[in-house]
């Protein structure tokens, strides 16, 4: 695969990959690290693969990376619980670029969308990891059952079960909200 084709592929998945990582890790910086690590791994180890193989491979790498970071964070959380806490606000810096959101002409509509995004993302973030993965890969990224199974490293039956449970859980929680 040419560098240009690989770049186009990465560009086509980077936003959704970031969102998936952000929902799994609940942290933007960690999500960006996970996406960059996954991109590097894909390019270094699987850059010569066919285009149809790349998406499941990339999401397999990303899923593993997210899981590793979740585990590491759990261990770090246990250690940090023994140490004195520090005010997080001290570390925050004003970032002009970060505050420049995409332009949107209708404030009322924007508010409505923002609320829907907040409610949905919160509900997805609270799903068990496997259900969250199945839901995001199937519904958001649009992988089919076989590709999702490949990306998650499980059977197609498991994908269907996780996806069904995720949908039920989200429906029960969100109902008519969205």
């Amino acid at each position, binding site marked *: 695969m040419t560098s240009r084709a690989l770049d186009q592929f*990465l560009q086509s998945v980077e936003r959704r990959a970031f*969102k998936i990582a952000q929902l799994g890790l609940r942290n933007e910086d960690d999500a960006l690290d996970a996406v960059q690590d996954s991109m590097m791994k894909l*390019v270094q180890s699987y850059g010569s693969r066919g285009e149809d193989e790349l998406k499941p491979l990339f999401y397999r790498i990303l899923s593993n990376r997210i899981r590793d970071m979740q585990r590491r964070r759990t261990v770090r959380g246990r250690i940090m619980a023994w140490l004195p806490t520090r005010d997080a606000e001290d570390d925050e810096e004003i970032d002009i670029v970060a505050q420049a959101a*995409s332009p949107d002409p209708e404030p009322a509509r924007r508010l409505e*969308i923002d609320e*829907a995004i907040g409610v*949905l993302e919160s509900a997805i973030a609270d799903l068990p990891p496997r259900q969250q993965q199945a839901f995001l890969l199937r*519904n958001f990224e649009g992988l089919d059952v076989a590709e999702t199974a490949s990306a998650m490293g499980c059977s197609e039956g498991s994908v269907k079960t996780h996806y069904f449970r995720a949908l039920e859980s989200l429906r029960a929680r969100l109902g008519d909200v969205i």
Partner: protein
Amino acid sequence: MDDRTPFETRTREILEESTAKLDGRTLSRLTQARHAAQESKPARSPWMSFAPAGAAAAVAVLAVVMWSGNRASDPVLFAQGTQVDDMELLADGEAPDFTDVAEDLEFYEWAADEVET
């Protein structure tokens, strides 16, 4: 997924909206990540560009060596083949019939006796 329910379609639309609203800093860092990934691609050694030609040459040399080896053993194979052919020829019904020669000898003996008497 074409058979989405309205709920699935709506949730997907909302998630797409959220990716469209990513801030400039995040988009910039994603672009940097992509470029960093591309730059991390293992560089190909200049010698590797000759690898296909080298492999083809090696195969050609091997083929010539094996062919020469076969040729060297040809005389033996041919000799063995000739022996086998001879045996088949002897066993074959089309082979010359030496009984004819024996009959001719009897005739010449009889003719010689006739001349003597």
